[in-house]
């Protein structure tokens, strides 16, 4: 039960008055002398017990009168609704998007004022006056998702003690919310009147996807506007590093977009990029200026960044209604130059004749379109003949084996240990790789399946028929402008029958795998069945050789694609940078949520195609500063009034016949 004027309950202290009167007025009596009291005693003896009952009944009536009068002014009403009723359904949707965390009012008073969502929850009592007394009620929070408000075991939804969430970080999606409500109404159809109430700040950007949206036309939607009349916001709506994975020890650029949605100019406001990587912190100041309603982009040029994850924020120093979007999180990974040990399984005295000549050359060159002051990989070429032993792999990131026949026991163990530590490997085929090599490759942990031996093309060269365009290693080649892998021609390859857990990234037309991959944690083993020498054609002199080799090695090193950083929408989750296993998630508020422009209930109804109820109300903080005289359904005052009258009459009748 709630009270419209709960503060008046303090007047219940007045019940002390009849109690005092009951005690004090007893003593006031008029003295009269009589000749004898014997007849009085007879009469009083008959009346004693009745008088005792009447006295206490009189006190109870007087106390009851005081209590009822106080309650009459406090105006109690029934605020809870039972579940399982048979008189229809009313769905309450309460907006909990980030814009509802605004505190409205002048800057000097914002800290003490309540959020829009707190105000909406507090005004639920007014909303509930529109709900039939016996209606079943289902309520839910909504932003981009819909979260039903739990009910108790008996189906009762207690709204009297509802509290708004502390953190509001989601965008707005009216369509998602009303779709949920439509489903609930559909399930309750036939049980009685249906209605939906939406408490929201009517953010214009909150319509969501309307492609498959449908809402029943016969269900009225009450829109309760809790938003302020005017609003202004400055927000950092976008932060874009040059890449989510950049080269370590090189400077990079981070761009930030500032939106000025206020009615005044944004002039020279301080903006700051702050990045941290373990104990290293970088802060880069800037200033932002933007016209009314316009955005501006600021580019932060960082100094060379050491390897590792760099995370931080771009923030603007401004005091507005929605401080949540005054700063935005950013993270990217600075990948150190991979250290590559190239095992040449068919080295020659003349290096140009060696198996790894083209491969080494490719790894020392910059990829097409890039210019780097330094080689992209740190490459060490190691001739790996029958007498050679694999060197220490502690300072190696990627082990590249080019046409290596096999690995003796100790070397296989060393390689396996290297892979277990998180190292990666790229294996190129060749004539040295055959069925006899399989056992040592297995022992070294480099096997991706059964090695069937050299497979030569007969009439026409092998060409790549299909490749995994979504895989990070080969994704750049999905755009033919970066090179058409189908144009590569191979005169042969080492045929591999893939084992379990092995992903084939590229195949020839007859299905023979060309590129295979197996991942185990940070460790990756990538096979390219073709030789990097001349055995399997001239593909090593194709212009696609260099970028393909770079992708294979980088892919093995985990430095392709976005790297370990993922940018995800807020979606009601905690905003910021968080590690989930091997991945870092960056969650920011949806940029649309920073645009506080509002629509009208009519516009919302028209765009969503719903039937707007006529008695929708305004619940904005200014509008609800009312005198509280409006009537509410569910109020108990008629019964209280009747009680006061009956109690007062009974008190009057009894008081004349009772000693006080």
């Amino acid at each position: 039960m709630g009270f419209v004027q709960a503060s008046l309950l303090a007047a219940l202290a007045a019940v002390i008055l009849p109690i005092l009167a009951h005690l004090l007025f007893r003593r006031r009596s008029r003295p009269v002398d009589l000749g004898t009291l014997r007849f009085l005693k007879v009469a009083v003896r008959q009346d004693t017990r009745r008088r005792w009952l009447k006295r206490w009944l009189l006190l109870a009536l007087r106390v009851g009168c005081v209590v009822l009068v106080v309650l009459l002014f406090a105006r109690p009403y029934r605020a809870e609704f039972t579940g399982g009723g048979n008189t229809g359904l009313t769905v309450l949707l309460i907006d909990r998007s980030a814009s509802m965390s605004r505190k409205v009012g002048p800057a000097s008073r914002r800290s003490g004022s309540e959020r829009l969502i707190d105000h909406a929850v507090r005004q639920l009592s007014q909303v509930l006056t529109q709900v039939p007394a016996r209606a079943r009620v289902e309520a839910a929070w909504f932003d981009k998702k819909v979260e039903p408000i739990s009910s108790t075991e008996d189906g009762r939804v207690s709204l009297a003690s509802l509290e708004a969430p502390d953190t509001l970080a989601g965008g707005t999606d009216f369509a998602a919310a009303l779709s949920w409500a439509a489903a609930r109404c559909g399930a309750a159809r036939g049980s009685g009147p249906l209605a939906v109430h939406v408490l929201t700040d009517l953010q214009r950007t909150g319509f969501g996807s309307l492609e498959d949206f449908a809402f029943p036309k016969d269900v009225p939607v009450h829109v309760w506007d809790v938003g302020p009349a005017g609003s202004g916001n400055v927000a950092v709506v976008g932060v874009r590093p040059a890449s989510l994975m950049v080269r370590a020890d090189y400077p990079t650029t981070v761009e930030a977009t500032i939106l000025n949605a206020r009615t005044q100019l944004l002039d020279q406001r301080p903006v700051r990029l702050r990045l941290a990587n373990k104990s290293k912190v970088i802060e880069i100041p800037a200033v932002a200026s933007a016209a009314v309603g316009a955005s501006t982009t600021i580019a932060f040029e960082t100094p060379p960044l050491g390897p590792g994850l760099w995370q931080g924020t771009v923030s603007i120093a401004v005091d507005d209604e929605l401080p949540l979007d005054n700063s935005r999180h950013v993270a990217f990974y600075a990948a150190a130059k991979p250290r590559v040990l190239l095992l040449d399984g068919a080295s020659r005295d003349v290096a140009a004749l060696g198996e790894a000549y083209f491969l080494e050359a490719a790894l020392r060159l910059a990829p097409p379109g890039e210019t780097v002051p330094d080689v992209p990989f740190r490459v060490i070429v190691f001739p790996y003949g029958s007498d050679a032993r694999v060197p220490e792999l502690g300072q190696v990131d990627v082990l590249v084996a080019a046409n290596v026949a096999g690995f003796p026991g100790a070397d296989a163990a060393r390689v396996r240990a290297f892979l277990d530590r998180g190292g990666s490997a790229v294996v190129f085929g060749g004539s040295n790789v055959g069925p006899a090599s399989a056992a040592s490759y297995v022992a070294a942990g480099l096997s991706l399946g059964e090695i069937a031996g050299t497979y030569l093309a007969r009439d026409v060269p092998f060409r790549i028929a299909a490749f995994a365009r979504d895989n990070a290693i080969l994704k750049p080649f999905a755009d033919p402008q970066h090179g058409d892998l189908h144009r590569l021609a191979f005169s042969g390859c080492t045929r591999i029958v893939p084992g379990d857990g092995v992903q084939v990234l590229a195949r020839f037309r007859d299905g023979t795998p060309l590129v295979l991959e197996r991942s185990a944690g940070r460790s990756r083993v990538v096979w390219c069945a073709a030789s990097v020498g001349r055995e399997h054609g001239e593909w090593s002199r194709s212009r696609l050789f260099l970028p393909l080799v770079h992708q294979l090695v980088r892919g093995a090193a985990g430095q392709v694609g976005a790297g370990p950083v993922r940018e995800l929408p807020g979606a009601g989750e905690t905003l910021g940078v968080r590690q989930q296993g091997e991945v870092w998630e960056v969650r920011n508020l949806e940029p649309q949520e920073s645009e506080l422009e509002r629509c009208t209930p009519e516009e919302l109804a028209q765009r969503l195609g719903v039937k707007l109820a006529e008695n929708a109300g305004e619940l904005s903080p200014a509008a609800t500063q009312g005198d509280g005289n409006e009537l509410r359904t569910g109020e108990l005052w008629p019964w209280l009034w009747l009680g006061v009258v009956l109690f007062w009459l009974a008190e009057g009748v009894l008081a004349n016949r009772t000693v006080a």
Partner: protein
Amino acid sequence: MELRARSVVEGFLHGLHRSPYIGFSVEFASHHEYVPGDDPRHINWKLYARQHRLYVKEFDGDTNLNLHILLDVSGSMACASLGRSKLHYAATLAAALAHLAIRQHDAAGITLFAGQVIASLPPRAKTQQLQEILGLIANAVPQAQTDAGRAIHQAAEMCRKRGVVAVISDCFDEIPRLMDAFDHLLFLNHEVVLFQVLDPWERDLPLEGNVRFRDLETGETLTTLSESIRVGYRQAVRQWLTELERECLSRGIDRVELTTDDPLDRALLEYFVRRSRQ
């Protein structure tokens, strides 16, 4: 006191003259059958014509009425709801009766009693007897306790001459004790007339609100809401008066119920008219 008594008597007599009835002991008292030696001049020949028996008339002077007035001056007689106490009213009544008797050359005496006989004047027909009676009455003050029964027994011993005993009291004593005392008087061949004087509040309890009642004799108090016990009170009083009336009637005692708001002359007139019809 004398003025009050005289005004009462004159009022009474004025009313009496207008009455078609003849009051007692003014002209005629009674008959007795003729016995040899009676004065033949007083034979009522009209009665002989009717009865064929000889009867001789008796006159006032023949009866030598002795009026004994017993006045209750106990504490309960101090009750005065209307500003005039029962004692004041009773004293006026006693004075009026004495005045009337002495005026008619009857002997009148008075005894004041409470718990016992306090003061007494034997009946005499002298002129200054009235003054003495009035003086005694005027100096009467309410006494604390009452024991009417015992006091009347004492008074009965003192009333040797046969006559009319007018007991003026509120009769708040126990009825059996009172009747026992009256029986004593009747045994001595007195004619007893009981003038019971009550206060209107004592009879009807017309009060409103919370009242603290005080017993004038014992000082005991009782607080109650008057309205709530009024019905029960009146019922108890009525029951008591009914019993008293019944006891008096069974003994042939005339009982006159008076309240202090009754005009005394009219009350006397109504009594004597009623009596003369008997």
